[in-house]
């Protein structure tokens, strides 16, 4: 009790009418070791019975100082580190970093590399959404979807493994393109995967979308309005579920997303159910993008001409991409040396996590779990 009370001292107390130490209030420390906090998130809950009066997130249990490490590594050496931030979407992290440095160096990856990048990034988006769906459903008590999604995620990881040797922290891209040419049969395998995967999305939906308990558990839970999303800087599927049609792949096309035809699924109510629908629809859109990309990979080199020792001109650059969880931005300041002067990451999970308190107030304990799941946070990215 005493521990959690002391750390509560800086909670915004003025927003609650009740005095701090109320006998009706129960302070619960959820995490950092808790099955549903997706890693090491610690949430201090203030409860009235089962009702949440307020909560505070305590983060930093997975802090590895990635940004600081960036200041002591050369541009190429820092590349694998970014994979360790959002480790379930390592390819997206790599894409963001490589494109940012390319912008700084003023080089562009050759078209063939661009296509392969899009395919791998979208495959990774599928993998990330699968992991989200499985764990989110598990948090709400449906244990079976987890095994279905992990079974299918395995096929994606196999493609990654075959391409670059790693399954999770892939380090798939290099500054200026790709290190590896695609392996023989890459296109065929991706196509086979798409044929295999398309009916699987229906299988997930069959278990959940019309399930009465699922709908009751997710509808009108953790609702957040578009204004609040924008005010808090929330991006990604959470923002889109609130009805804002904002996807960086369309809004500020990077890589070669402008060549592909896809829709931005949006929701209306901004509740957990809408976020679920948006993410499932995004899976279908990703399949569409991969389908177009894999059919049109051009011939040519996979690596642009980049200097062996990278010394970008002094200056700063911000570049952001649409990671599976939202806007993933890199702000890099160069002083003209081989190492960045400053690397700043704008992680979607960290920013989205801010909305947790707002989304959970007045809801029940079980909803906190559902909302943590629906925000789709990865603590590696929150803490960096």
């Amino acid at each position, binding site marked *: 009790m005493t521990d959690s009370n002391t750390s509560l001292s800086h909670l915004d107390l003025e927003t609650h009418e009740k005095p701090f130490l109320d006998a009706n209030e129960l302070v619960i420390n959820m995490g950092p070791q808790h099955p549903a906090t997706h890693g090491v998130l610690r949430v201090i809950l203030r409860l009235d019975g089962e009702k949440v009066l307020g909560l505070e997130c305590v983060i930093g249990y997975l802090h590895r100082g990635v940004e600081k490490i960036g200041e002591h590594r050369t541009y190429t050496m820092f590349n694998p580190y970014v994979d360790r931030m959002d480790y379930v979407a390592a390819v997206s992290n790599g894409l963001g970093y490589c494109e940012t440095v390319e912008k700084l160096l003023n080089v562009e990856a050759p078209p063939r590399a661009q296509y392969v990048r899009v395919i791998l990034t979208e495959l990774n988006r599928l993998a990330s959404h699968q992991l989200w769906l499985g764990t989110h459903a598990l948090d*709400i*008590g449906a*244990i079976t979807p987890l*095994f279905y999604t992990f079974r299918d995620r395995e096929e994606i990881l196999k493609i990654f493994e075959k391409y670059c040797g790693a399954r999770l922290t892939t380090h798939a891209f290099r500054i200026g393109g790709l290190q590896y040419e695609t392996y023989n049969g890459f296109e065929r395998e991706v196509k086979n995967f798409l044929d295999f995967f398309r009916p699987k999305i229906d299988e997930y939906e069959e278990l959940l979308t019309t399930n009465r*308990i699922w709908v*009751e558990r997710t509808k009108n839970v953790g609702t957040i309005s578009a204004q609040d999303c924008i005010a808090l800087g929330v991006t990604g599927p959470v923002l889109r579920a609130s009805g804002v049609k904002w996807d960086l792949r369309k809004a500020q096309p990077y890589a070669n997303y402008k060549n592909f035809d896809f829709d931005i699924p949006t929701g209306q109510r901004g509740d957990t159910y809408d976020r679920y629908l948006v993410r499932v629809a995004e899976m279908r859109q990703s399949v569409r993008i991969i389908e177009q990309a894999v059919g049109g990979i051009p011939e040519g080199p996979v690596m642009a001409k980049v200097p062996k020792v990278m010394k970008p001109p002094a200056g700063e650059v911000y570049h952001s991409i649409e990671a599976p969880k939202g806007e993933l931005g890199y702000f890099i300041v160069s002083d003209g040396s081989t190492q960045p002067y400053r690397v700043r990451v704008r992680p979607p999970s960290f920013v989205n996590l801010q909305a947790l308190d707002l989304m959970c107030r007045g809801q029940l304990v079980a909803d906190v779990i559902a909302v943590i799941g629906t925000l789709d946070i990865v603590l590696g990215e929150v803490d960096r």
Partner: protein
Amino acid sequence: MEQLIQYVQSYLTSDQTPGAAGNMFWALVYILLVFVGLSIAVIAMNWLERKILAHMQVRLGPMRVGPHGLLQPIADAVKLLLKEDIMPAEADAPIFWMAPFMVVLAAFTVFVVVPFGPTHAITDMNIGILFMLGVSSLSVLGIVMAGWASNSHYPLIGALRSSAQMVSYEVAMGLAVVSAILMTSLNASGTGTLSMIGIVQAQQTQGIWFIFKFFPLGLIAFFIFAVAMVAETNRAPFDLAEAESELTAGFHTEYSGFRWSLFFLAEYSAMIAVSSIAVTLWLGGWLRPFPNLLNNSAWDLVFSLVPGITFLFLAAMCFYNAVRMPKHPFFRIQTIGLAGFGVLLGLIGLILFIPAVSLRVQDIFWFSTKVAAFMYLYIWYRGTFPRYRFDQLMQMGWKVLLPMGLGVLILTATAGLWPLIQHSIWHP
């Protein structure tokens, strides 16, 4: 000595339960049999749940300890018994110590009146069903004690949830039970019965299982009970009291080792207990299927062969899988073990073909089969449904099941009295 033998033998010709016949020796034997049988059932249920759930979830489940993981529950039990017995420093020691025993006591005591056959019950009480409902709801006391004594937040919330849940679902459950009991009174004398054996016998004499009686009223009452009993036993999708993703483990978060295994044992035997109530009240208890339609001696013979055939089928499955085992020296013991298990099942099957044995045992077989079907449903629910939220659960109990239960009760009473009402309308 002779008197003693006579005393023991005197029961064999009786057509009563040992308790009702007042024969202490056989009552003790039955208590032991029920206790052992229940423990075996819980062990088997543990293995089956893990296997069935695993196959629903595209995985294999336990495969290492024994052939197809058959010895896994035993390995787990040994592990639990050998674990250190941890008690939180701030816990309320005596209550913490008592709680699991309370739960186990409640879960096992109800089996005193469960009728596995017309004579196969420890005793036959004239208030049997009330006794069952009453004692099985005592387990909530143990859960509240566990949650309170742990002196920790998660168990406390789990215990509160559990008690609120059990109290609200017991009402709907009771109404469903009453509507079934009303049906027992539809005989010449017009008196019903609360005795578990009497209820099954009423279904026998009326020639219909109560689930089909006054269709669809019996079915609705059964449905209400089937939902309420899942909530009553704290199982998915009503497993809020031990919601893993919310409360880590709910009321037994602070328990480990032997004490935890007692909770586990109690949970599964409670599941079997409520399933037995459902089977007794609506599914004809120990009666074989269609006792009234297919009632000539030929059908009697066919149905008396079913238990033996079932065991032979299980044995054949064992042999089939023993043949399919990898042909590697490493798997020899497992293959032999599986074949041995098959031989055991086959022998039981053969013994069940002996007319004298099958006559005495087939009641137990049909009862267990029906209960097993409920156990499968429990596993199926767990593999399919997300978890209800607390307020939704209460809403369901009070706003859906309770009115439904009341309506069914009134309609059942009306349907039962209909001949009388008709009579008074036409012949005032």
